C-alpha cells in the first residue's frame, strides 16, 4: 500500500500560501467594516480625552444598550457601553465595578435594522465592534460628541437573563403586611383628622 505523507508537498504549500494571502488581502480590504483597520479605543479614553480622537476613525467594542432610535434622517441612534457589565451581567452574578461607561453612536439605519434586541433589564444586548469617525463637539450637531459609525461586526448576539424572586425578602414582606393589617383593624377606630 502506498502510504501518503501527512505533510503537503511543495505545490500544496504554495496553494495554501496563496489562499492565505488572498484571505488576508480580503480581510484587509474589509478592514474598516470589521474593525481591523483602525485602533480599538476604550470608551473611558474617549470620555477622558475626547479631543485627542476628534475626526479620527476608531473602533469601539461593547454592548448596545437602551433603545434603537430610528430617525427620519436615515440614521439610527443608540448607546454602546464598554464596561464590565457588557460581558458579565450583574443579574448573572457579575461583579459591581461602578457606573456604566458609554457613548452615543449614530449609524445608517440599514446597519441597525437586523440587530438583536438592545441591552436592558434581563437582557444582555449584542456585543459589537463599531468602526467609525469619532465626532467630538460636532459643530453640525450643537456640540454633541458621538461615534459616526460606518462599519459593524456583531461579536455576540446577546441573550435573555433570568432573575427570580428572593423568597426570603418576599416572606418578610408578607409577614410585615399581615401584621400591619392586624394592627390596622385595631387602630381603624382612630380619627385621621389632622388638627
Amino acid at each position, binding site marked *: 500500500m502506498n502510504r501518503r505523507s501527512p505533510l503537503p508537498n511543495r505545490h500544496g504549500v504554495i496553494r495554501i500560501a496563496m489562499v492565505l494571502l488572498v484571505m488576508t488581502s480580503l480581510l484587509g480590504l474589509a478592514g474598516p467594516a470589521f474593525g481591523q483597520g483602525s485602533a480599538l479605543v476604550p470608551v473611558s479614553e474617549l470620555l477622558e480625552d475626547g479631543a485627542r480622537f476628534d475626526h479620527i476613525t476608531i473602533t469601539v467594542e461593547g454592548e448596545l444598550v437602551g433603545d434603537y432610535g430610528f*430617525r427620519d434622517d436615515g440614521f439610527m441612534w443608540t448607546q454602546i457601553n464598554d464596561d464590565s457589565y457588557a460581558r458579565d451581567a450583574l443579574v448573572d452574578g457579575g461583579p459591581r465595578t461602578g457606573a456604566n461607561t458609554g457613548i452615543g453612536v449614530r449609524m445608517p439605519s440599514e446597519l441597525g435594522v437586523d440587530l438583536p434586541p438592545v441591552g436592558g433589564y434581563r437582557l444582555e444586548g449584542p456585543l459589537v465592534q463599531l468602526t467609525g469617525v469619532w465626532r467630538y463637539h460636532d459643530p453640525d450637531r450643537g*456640540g454633541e460628541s458621538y461615534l459616526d459609525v460606518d462599519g459593524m461586526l456583531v461579536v455576540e448576539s446577546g441573550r435573555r437573563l433570568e432573575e427570580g424572586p428572593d423568597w426570603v425578602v418576599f416572606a418578610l414582606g408578607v409577614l410585615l403586611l399581615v401584621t400591619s393589617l392586624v394592627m390596622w383593624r385595631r387602630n381603624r377606630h382612630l380619627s385621621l383628622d389632622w388638627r
Partner: protein
Amino acid sequence: MLIKPDREDLRIVAYALGRIFTVVAVASLVPLSWAVLGREWHPFASFLLMIGAFAFLGQLGLRYRPSDERLDWSHGMVVVALTWLAVPMIGSIPFIFSGHYGSPIDAIFDAMSGLTTTGLALVQDLDHMAPSLNFWRHLLHFLGGQGIVIAALVLFAGGGGLTLYYGEARDERILPSVRSTARFIWAVALVHLVVGVLVLGVIAHQVLGFEWKRSFFHALMIFFAAFDTGGFAPQSTSLGYYHSAIFEFATTVLMVAGAMSFGLHYALWRGPRRALFKNLETRTILTTFTFTMVLTMVGLGAAGIYTSVQGLTRQGFFQIISAHSGTGFSTVPSSELAMWGGLAFAGMTIAMALGGMASSTAGGIKALRIGLTVKAVANQTKQLLLPEGAVVSTQYFQSGRKRLTPQLAQSAMTVALLYVALFLLGAGVALGYGYGLQEALFESVSAGASVGLSVGVTEPSMPMLLKLTYMFQMWAGRLEFVAVFALLGFIYAWVRGK
C-alpha cells in the same frame, strides 16, 4: 432651663409619623404594581418588604394616639426632619436588594438623593436596572419635590398642619388654608405631569424614533426628574443619551417650571400675570441667570472648549439652566464637566448655589433671599449716605407689596450664610480626602443645593465619611435648616433637659 420632652410629646411625634408612613406605604403601591405588570418578581419582593415596613411603622405610630393631637411648631418640625430621614432609609430597601449598590449606605444615599431632588447617584450598572426600580428612583423625586408631608396633608381630612407645611421649606401659603394650598400644589404638578409626559413622549417617538412604550417610559422618568428639579435619568448618560435639541428644549421648559415658586404658578393660572414681572424673585432670578450664563459662556469661549457658536450656546445654555434650576441633568459626561475651569466653573458653581425660587421644588439659597439681601445691603448703604436720623423704608413686591423689615433681612441673610457654611463643610471633607479644591467645591455645592451635577467625585468608591457628609448636606439643604435645628434641639432637650 431646657424642658425635657415628655411622653405626650413623643406620642404626638410618633402618631404624626405613623400617618405619614401610612401615606407613603399607599404611594409605594404604584412601583409595586409596575413590577407586577412588568413581571419583575425580584424587585416585586423587595417593594413588598418596603411597603410592609412602611405600613408596620405607620400602624405602630398610630397606636400611640396622644390625648391632644394638636401639633405645635417644634413637634411639626421634628416630624418633618424625621420623615425626611426615615423615608429614604426605608425607601432604599428595593435598592439594597437590587444588587445595583455596593452597600446599604450607597442605596440610602440614592434614596436620599432622590427624595431631596438632588440627583447625585451611586447606582452601578443603571443601564440594566429593572424599569420598576428606575421608576421608584424617579417617583422619589416626585414625592420629595412636591413634599411627602404635603401629600399627607392633601389626603387627610381636617385643617391645620401649618407647621408641617413650613417644615418642608415652603415659605408662602398661596390659598387661605394650608390644605387648599397643598391641593393646589399637587394640582399644578398633575396638570404638568399630563402635558409634560404627553409632549416628551410624542417627541421621543416621532423625533427620536423610540417605540411608543419606551417613549412614554422615558417621558415619565424625565418629567419627574425635570419638573421636580431632581436630575436622575433612566440611562447612565443622563440627557446626553437623547442627542436631540428639541428634547432638551422641552426638558428645559419643565426645569424652569419646576424652579418657579408655586405662588408664581398661581399668579400665572389665576392671578394677574403682570405680577410675574413685578415680583422681586422673578427679577432676581432673571438677573442671576443672565450673570451666571454670561460668566459660563465667556469661560467656555475663552477656554476654546466648543469651536462653534451653536455648540457653545446649546451646551452652555442647557448646563446653566440645569445648574440654576437645581435639576442636575447633563448633556456632557462628568469627566468633561470637570474640565470646565475658570469662569465656566465659577458660573456653574454660583448658579448651583443660588438655586431656584422659594416655595418651588428647587434647592439652593433661593432667589428671594438673594433679592432681599441685596435690597437690605442697598438700604444700609443709602442709610449711611443720608443725614443722621433719616429713616429709609424699603418695599418689595412678592405676591403683593411688602415692607422689608430688619428681621426679614436678617433671616434671609442667616439662611444664606448657613448655606455657605454647608457648602464649605462638604468641600472641607473632600479636601481632607485629597480631592482638588475645584472638584471638592463643585460637588459640595451640588449636594448642598440639591442639584446633582457631578465632576466625578460622587462614585461608589468614594470615602464613606464623604458619602455621609453629602447625605447630611442633601437633607439639611432640602429642609433649609429650620427642621434640622428643631430636631437637634429636641434631641438635646431630651438628653439634657429637666
